[in-house]
């Protein structure tokens, strides 16, 4: 019995031991499978290879709907080392157009984990990038002979015409900073680097898609997961309709050949840029494809600062084109009335023996003719009167008041165009002069040059063009912009809102009369086009380093203006010489869609002008 009892006890111990182990294992299973999500994540990252599907970048059309920027397939040759077998290297090199030593060099570069950290002999690696379509065609036919090699297509930017480089900007491979800033990017992605391509990057790039593939422990792809049900298709980027008029843009760039400067044309009612030229310019196609790096370096080294986006990045004293703004402030502040006459004896004496010079014209003149003849004395007198006027209490108040009007008219700060890296120009305020001269150290006479758009005042060509558009609108402007419409996306509301200048519309009439007068019988006679009423104002930005820069702003028609135009030619000398006839041709081109044969001599004269060489002395 004792024996039997002992056996039963031991049998039970054994059974409990076995049950105990199973309970322990069950608890372990539950802790692994139910109370720890980590393992599922590990398993997924092990097995799922998420292959990125690249969306096509948004296209760009001009304002009339003609295609400007599109995508063209380019082909990368990939190699899967594990699968390379019996390669006829000589034949292969010939087909893809590389030398034998380049081939060996590329092969070892692919295998080098320092240069290519993601290397795996089981997955395709980039061997050659951006093959041309022609080379691809030849390779495609022979591809079956090169085991282990495959081709991946990507898209590259292509341009219908080699124009508008500074407006469009360019696309480049993302750098480390982009990747850190925006998790969307991974190394090897492309993103807009300047111009519209940069500003509208987020709508142009679309959304990457994902193909969920299964990958084994060696990194070999074993097929699609769940028949592709978990794939996410790529969403193509939104197409843009630019406000540019391709014909006008091309013509403007043609006329600007061999010159440096900027042309900005704005549709006053909408703020849309009709032309946007920075000269000298380049073919945007140069910054695409395999030779991109070389071309970029060449352009960058040019003495003409090709990458300087002149319409928004060059600051100049606006000269006489600033006088209408001056007049508007004086009118609004009641310092002058349109009938106010100021006499001019070849200039304005602001202190005994000190004068701002003027040229010969009838005197005294009321406002409109003063603008037409660009009389310096008129504006110096007005400006000084305002600065020293007792109603402000001090010159500081007067100065800041004046500054506020100028800012209201779009000067002094970046306007907010949809092209990045815009400069602000300069409208000084009282503090600015306090710093220079001390609080009591300056009077109207001290800063008299501001009156005629010189002195400390600086403006970008875009700001001057925008001001011209403001005059055309009689008192308001819409922030200039290059993109008229984004497919499927609302445009930034800033590009729809009217900005009021704070100057009554009525005060613009004498200004417009004056600018009209300048065209009829003043400094801008050369712009006249039969049948079109044009208002214009010439200007000269003084240049201590060489020939002055010539400026001309104009709008037309006088009633219901369709275009406000600024032509800025560096070292163009007096405005009437180059800027005025160029504006005339551009207005005619835009408004009449063609240039009369009788005026082709003007065109020829402009095309032949080489102002870049002039500068070289």
């Amino acid at each position, binding site marked *: 019995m004792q024996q039997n009892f*002992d*056996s039963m006890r*031991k*049998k039970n*111990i*054994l*059974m409990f*031991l*076995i*049950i105990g*182990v*199973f309970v*322990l*294992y*069950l608890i*372990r*299973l*539950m802790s*692994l*499978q*139910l109370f*720890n999500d*980590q*393992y*599922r994540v*590990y*398993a*997924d990252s*092990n*097995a*799922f290879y998420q292959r990125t599907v690249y969306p096509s970048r948004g296209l760009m059309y001009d304002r009339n709907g003609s295609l400007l920027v599109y995508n063209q397939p380019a082909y990368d040759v990939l190699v899967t080392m594990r699968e390379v077998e019996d390669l006829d290297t000589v034949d292969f090199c010939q087909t893809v157009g590389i030398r034998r030593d380049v081939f060996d060099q590329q092969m070892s570069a692919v295998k080098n984990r320092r240069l290519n950290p993601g290397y795996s002999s089981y997955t395709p690696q980039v061997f050659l990038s951006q093959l041309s379509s022609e080379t691809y065609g030849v390779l495609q036919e022979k591809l079956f002979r090169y085991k282990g090699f495959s081709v991946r297509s990507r898209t590259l930017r292509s341009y219908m015409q080699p124009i508008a480089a500074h407006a469009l900007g360019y696309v480049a491979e993302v750098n480390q900073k982009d990747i850190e800033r925006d998790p969307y990017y991974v190394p090897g992605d492309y993103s807009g680097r300047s111009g519209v391509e940069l500003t509208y990057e987020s709508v142009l790039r679309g959304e990457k898609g994902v193909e969920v593939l*299964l*990958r*084994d*422990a*060696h990194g070999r792809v*074993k*097929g699609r997961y769940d028949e592709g049900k978990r794939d996410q298709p790529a969403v193509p980027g939104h197409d843009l309709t630019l406000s540019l008029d391709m014909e006008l843009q091309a013509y403007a760039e043609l006329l600007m050949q061999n010159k440096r400067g900027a042309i900005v044309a704005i549709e006053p009612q909408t703020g849309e840029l009709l032309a946007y030229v920075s000269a000298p310019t380049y073919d945007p196609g140069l910054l695409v494809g395999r030779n991109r790096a070389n071309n970029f370096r060449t352009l960058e080294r040019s003495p003409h600062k090709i990458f300087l986006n002149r319409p928004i990045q060059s600051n100049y004293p606006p000269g006489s084109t600033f006088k209408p703004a001056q007049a508007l402030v004086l009118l609004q502040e009641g310092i002058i009335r349109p009938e106010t006459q100021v006499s001019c004896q070849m200039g304005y004496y602001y202190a005994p023996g000190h004068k701002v010079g003027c040229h010969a014209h009838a005197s005294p003149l009321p406002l409109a003719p003063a603008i037409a003849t660009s009389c310096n004395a008129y504006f110096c007198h007005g400006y000084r009167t305002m600065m020293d006027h007792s109603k402000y209490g001090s010159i500081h108040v007067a100065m800041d008041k004046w500054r506020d009007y100028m800012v209201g008219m779009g000067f002094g700060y970046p306007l907010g165009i949809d092209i990045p890296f815009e400069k602000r120009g300069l409208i000084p305020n009282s503090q600015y002069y306090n710093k220079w001269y001390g609080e009591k150290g300056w009077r109207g006479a001290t800063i008299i040059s501001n009156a005629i758009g010189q002195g400390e005042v600086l403006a970008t060509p875009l700001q001057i063009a925008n001001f011209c558009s403001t005059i055309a609108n009689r008192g308001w402007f819409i922030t200039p912009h290059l993109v008229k419409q984004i497919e499927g996306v609302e445009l930034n509301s800033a590009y729809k809102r009217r900005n009021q200048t704070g100057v009554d519309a009525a005060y613009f009439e004498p200004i417009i009369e004056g600018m009209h007068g300048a065209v009829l019988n003043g400094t801008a006679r050369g712009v006249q086009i039969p049948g079109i009423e044009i208002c214009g104002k010439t200007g000269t930005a003084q240049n201590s380093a060489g020939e002055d820069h010539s400026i001309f702003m104009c709008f037309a028609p006088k009633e219901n203006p369709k275009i406000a135009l600024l032509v800025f030619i560096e070292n163009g000398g007096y405005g009437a010489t180059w800027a005025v006839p160029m504006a005339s041709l551009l207005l005619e081109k835009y408004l009449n869609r063609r240039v009369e044969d009788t005026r082709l001599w003007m065109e020829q004269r402009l095309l032949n002008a080489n102002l870049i060489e002039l500068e070289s002395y």
Partner: protein
Amino acid sequence: MNRTDVTPFWKALDWWVVGLYVLLCVVGCLSIYGASFDFEHPGFFDLDQRSGKQFVWFILALVIGVFLLMMDSNTYYNWSFILYAGIILILLLTLVVATDVKGSRSWLNMGFVSIQPAELAKFSTALALSRLMSSYNFQLRQTKSVLMIGSLILLPMLIIVLQKETGSALVFAAFILMLFREGMPGVLLFLLVCLVAYFVLSIRFGEDLLFQTTSLGPMLVLLLIFIILCGMLITYRKDYALVKGLVFIQLPIFVVALLVNALGWFAFDVNDVLVTMLILTVLFLLFKALVLRMMPYFYLSLFVLFSIAFLYSTDYAFDKILEPHHRVRIQVLLGMKDDPSGAGYNVNQSKIAIGSGGLFGKGFLNGTQTKLKYVPEQDTDFIFCTVGEEQGLMGSAFVLGLYLALFLRLIYLAERQRNPFARIYGYCVVSILFFHVFVNIGMVLGLMPVIGIPLPFLSYGGSSLWSFTILLFIFLRLDADRTQYR
């Protein structure tokens, strides 16, 4: 024995065990299909695929099973020693002629099929042990019996170790469970647990130094020995006075020794103090045993001496006897090394596979971990991963349940035998199968070191499936004949 009395085996056969066996084998085939599933070759019965082969081996195993059931049950008793001797010879032969396969010399190439004689040694040793222990007048506690049992078990074990199949050799340790049931003193089982505890503690904390003088591992083991000694003195002798004396004398000395080291007055190995105190205790116990003629004190002092000796041979065994990869596996298991790409890789990927299964699993053939070869040996030693990943907790618990039911049923069957030969053999079967499941699933779950032994009936491989089938069906045959004896 009268031939006509023999019941047809299918009438007395325990269909519960057969059912569980078939279920496990089917789960095995399906899991192997899942584990070796290739997207490009999805055929189940494709004989080029592992699942197809396993299915064939399963059918053959059934044929073998039926054949075994048709044999006269006395055959097994009569032939057990001859079978044992024969298998030992084959094992030796294998050692000589086998070619080296991944460092192991255990496969015997028979032309059309390769077999692993080590697998066959399991049931032949079980039969021989049963025959020996069921013989008339056999007394387990006699020294002669112990030596004979020891030789029967250690002989095949030794040869298999020489074949570099350490995992298979370890399986023979499973007979301890059977021996326990058959009268081996429970103290021995307890001692075994102590040894494992000593080993784990001394290795796990062996590299942690206190005050630059004292290794933490041995210190913990020495303290454990002291605690066990006190516990046994209380349990077996109710000698509270002695325990109080030991604690009041030794604890202050130990604390002072620690303090002296900690304050940096004098640097020495605290463990030397502990060992000295234990030896003094042993001397005192021996003195008590001799003077008072009380054997328990003698055994206790032997236990302490043996424990100390074991402790100091552990380091030696760990560093000198174990192979480097075994050493790393143990260190990884004990959390001393983190090596997710090396030795820890298998277990890590296996845990990921099972852990990612969740409650209901990813579904049949949807497991990514196992399918895409992240888990190595996924259709042999790590087959349980496939179940865990694709069938989740429900499936794994179901399989565990099948095994538990099988073992409990086998214990029940063993206990109902009137013939000690059949009973002992039954316990051998339970011990061997349980040991396999215990170690294999423990390994897959990351609770055991990586020891390459198959999961019975589930793992891919003809040799192991057949040997488990033979092991089990001989017992079923014996059980079917239970009424024929006495």
